[in-house]
């Protein structure tokens, strides 16, 4: 009895049983059950690790494509922004100027906190400008923002993030935004800026209204006709959107890769822990059985 009790602390830890079983038979039954339980959990953790590993590989391959698209899209956005920088365009301030906040997230989760980071920034801006309207791209941020700022929402888009965003997507969204009945003095696009593989930062790019462009300091230098101005504005909006979408997509893939990498690592840790526990428990069961046999043999010899 003494020996079997000494071998039991490990068992009890595995079974997490607080009450000590009354008979030896019951103890054995309990350990067998936990052995099987541990085996089952080990198996399921292994499966989860396999899944997360595969998702990481998928995200890695998508990431290279997304990064390429991001670098290409950057030139679109930056070139079109150069015009406004050189013209020193500033957003119009004043009473009755409506702001539109555009959040460029995506439909898919499992990629850490990049969506909530953007939602947080959007909420912060909304606190300062409570009458601003909200357009959300992607289901994830939509779900988050519709709970807190549902009244500000005017449009939401879905179907983003299945693949690398195309310019056709951006143009179609920009069109739908220009069709909105309200005239916005400034459009702020919130997206995740790709700093490096592990860090992203939600930032804002501005898309300006016709008035704002017209009133910018150096606007005369470009000799833009009044009639072409709306076209320029629409096109600039599409360019900025495309940039934001592509960069956000790259961030998402990279974040997903990291999240899945961490998940695989955690699964690996858990597998190690459970493997050790499993081995210990098995060893303890064997020891217990040996003790039973020996004591039984000794008892029958004596008797």
């Amino acid at each position: 009895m003494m020996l079997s009790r000494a071998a039991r602390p490990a068992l009890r830890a595995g079974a997490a049983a607080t009450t000590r079983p009354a008979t030896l038979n019951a103890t054995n039954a309990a350990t067998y059950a936990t052995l099987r339980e541990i085996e089952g959990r080990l198996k399921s953790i292994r499966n989860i690790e396999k899944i997360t590993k595969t998702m990481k590989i998928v995200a890695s391959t998508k990431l290279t494509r997304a990064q390429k698209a991001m670098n290409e899209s950057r030139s679109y956005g930056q070139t079109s922004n150069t015009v406004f920088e050189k013209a020193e365009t500033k957003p119009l301030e004043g009473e009755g100027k409506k702001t539109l906040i555009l959040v460029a997230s995506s439909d898919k989760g499992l990629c850490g906190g990049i969506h909530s980071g953007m939602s947080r920034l959007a909420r912060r801006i909304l606190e300062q400008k409570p009458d601003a309207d909200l357009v959300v791209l992607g289901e994830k941020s939509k779900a988050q923002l519709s709970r807190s700022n549902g009244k500000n929402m005017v449009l939401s888009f879905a179907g983003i993030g299945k693949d690398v965003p195309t310019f056709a997507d951006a143009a179609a969204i920009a069109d739908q935004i220009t069709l909105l009945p309200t005239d916005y003095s400034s459009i702020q696009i919130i997206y995740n800026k790709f700093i490096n593989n592990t860090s992203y930062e939600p930032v804002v790019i501005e898309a300006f209204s016709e008035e704002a462009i017209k009133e910018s300091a150096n606007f005369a230098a470009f000799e833009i006709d009044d009639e072409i101005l709306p076209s320029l504005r629409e096109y600039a909006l599409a360019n900025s959107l495309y940039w934001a979408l592509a960069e956000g997509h790259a961030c998402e893939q990279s974040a997903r890769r990291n999240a899945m990498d961490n998940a695989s690592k955690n699964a690996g840790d858990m597998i190690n822990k459970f493997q050790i526990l499993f081995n210990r428990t098995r060893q303890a069961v064997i020891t217990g059985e040996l003790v039973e046999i020996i004591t039984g043999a000794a008892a029958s010899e004596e008797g």
Partner: protein
Amino acid sequence: MAFAWKAAGLTYNRYVSVASRVVRRSLKEDKRIAAERRGESDLRFAKWENGKQGENKSLNTANEAAVADAAGHQSS
């Protein structure tokens, strides 16, 4: 300076996408398939009113309807 596409109620982005579609379709077969993929867009959108989400609609058909609507206004 008046543009024909503007008179027909197209936005500049719509005009550009139509033009790019034409260019893509006139490419050679192998290049065309790769290029047409860049022009694909399959988004859905919904209008919101007073914190309630409206109906989910396809973006492309909605845009085409808007263009047709604008064209109707222009001609009448």
